[in-house]
């Protein structure tokens, strides 16, 4: 008998909501309606090659099974994960240094802020100049995309370690690096996870635009290639995989946050 249930009785649409039974049903219903609108809208107004749910479903099995598609998916997702991993290791190190050391913070803050604000697409010409039109360039893009959000959030987390914890460390005469490993790192985890969430999203975007620019094998290039040859339904399959990756990464981070830090409220704003 919570306040919520009492007020739920009073909100508009409450009666209907109860009629609908459960939230899952409502969501699925809405999904069906949206897909229906997509299907009908395309049939009525768009040229034949435009993607529609029935078309996507029709080509889905063959696309998923095709070696070209699978290798493209592996290439892109691999680059994203690899880039994230590199960005994580480097980003945490730099971020914590920034958070705990006044000197480091003041030294590099404008670089970090500036490069964080730079739209990652703008770095592509430079990266292709330095790394060529290769997978390495794509990897560099994903690292660049994810790195700065991780640094900023790690710095926020390191800066926000409650003094009481540090006091305990001092009273046990812990050495500096032990303090960092045992206290600072775990205490900043929630912020870090927010940074990873953002970094993952950015890495995904980075990989896709890099593939547009570089034309190296991957889901982005798959979309480009197929949309140019009017095979939109096939291309949408790649979009679905990317959407799934985006949702999956975010779900993973959310799960990790809930599981390891149930006390952490997500109204700490990530950047």
């Amino acid at each position: 008998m919570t306040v919520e249930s009492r007020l739920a009785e009073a909100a508009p649409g409450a009666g209907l909501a109860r009629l609908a039974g459960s939230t899952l049903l409502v969501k699925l219903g809405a999904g069906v309606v949206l897909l229906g609108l997509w299907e009908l809208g395309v049939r009525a107004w768009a040229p034949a090659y435009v993607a529609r749910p029935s078309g996507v479903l029709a080509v889905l099995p063959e696309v998923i099974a095709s070696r070209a598609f699978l290798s493209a998916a592996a290439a892109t997702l691999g680059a994203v994960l690899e880039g994230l991993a590199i960005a994580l290791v480097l980003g945490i190190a730099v971020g914590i240094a920034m958070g705990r050391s006044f000197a480091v913070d003041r030294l590099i803050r404008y670089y970090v802020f500036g490069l964080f604000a730079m739209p990652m697409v703008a770095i592509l010409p430079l990266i292709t100049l330095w790394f060529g039109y290769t997978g390495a360039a794509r990897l560099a893009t994903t690292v660049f995309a994810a790195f700065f959000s991780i640094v900023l959030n790690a710095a926020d987390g390191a800066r926000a370690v409650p003094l009481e914890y540090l006091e305990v460390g001092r009273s046990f005469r812990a050495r500096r690096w032990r303090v960092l490993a045992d206290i600072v790192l775990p205490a900043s985890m929630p912020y870090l996870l927010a940074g990873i969430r953002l970094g993952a999203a950015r890495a995904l975007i980075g990989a896709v635009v890099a593939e547009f620019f570089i034309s190296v094998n991957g889901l982005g290039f798959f979309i480009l290639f197929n949309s140019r040859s009017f095979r939109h339904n096939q291309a949408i399959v790649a979009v679905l995989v990317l959407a799934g990756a985006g949702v999956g990464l975010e779900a993973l981070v959310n799960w990790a946050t809930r599981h390891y830090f149930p006390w952490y409220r997500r109204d700490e704003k990530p950047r």
Partner: protein
Amino acid sequence: MSVRPRSPRALGWLITGLGLAAGAALWEIVGRETGAAFMAPLSETLLRLAELAHTGELWQALASSLALFGAGFALSVAVGVPLGLLLARMRLLRIALESYIAILNATPIAALIPFILSLMGFGFAPKVLVVFLFAVFPILYNTVEGARSIRPELIEVARSFRSTERALWRDVLLPFVLPFALTGIRQAIGRALVGMIAAEFFLSASGLGMMLQSASQSFDTATIFAAILLVTLLGVALMELGGALERRYAAWRNIRT
């Protein structure tokens, strides 16, 4: 643990200044050492910037990009905020749509650019659409987050004082949801910038994106760096604006009662 300077502000500025100077020096030295096709030194970049400003090319590109950004961003706010507020009040609709909004927010919208190109071709409208799509989902998502976390006690208070629907919006719903919407808007600024450059790269070239791309094709690193510098400054300025707006209206939110 960390340095406790006597006058932190002055020392802070000194260190920052040193850092920037070191970076500038590094840029200049590496630029001179390596070939022109690899990295133009800082001095050349600045000269090119002045040149572009003088010929007017810089201002033209800036204006064109800002127009694109402005149109797409304004559209995303005009659609995203009212729609988010509507979902704030209509619980059933919100439950129905919030998962899809979350999914779209997590999807790289860049993946849709080829479709937009294929369907709408070159022109201003498809680029605006791209910027719009990049920006609208964080606004929607964050506004809906705000709606989801409205404390029902406050609505109860309003009902017990027999508040009208309009007064409920004015006194409770809008003030509560506003900071969340502003967080969404701040995030949308960053994304819209990416969308803007992406649109200028992959759809019809214009503005700073075109400047960057044509410089890239002719290995003109001085212009490449100049354009990157411009884009970065633009990004920093806009994001600072967004951040300031957000902080201004969210003061009461930081301390939870």
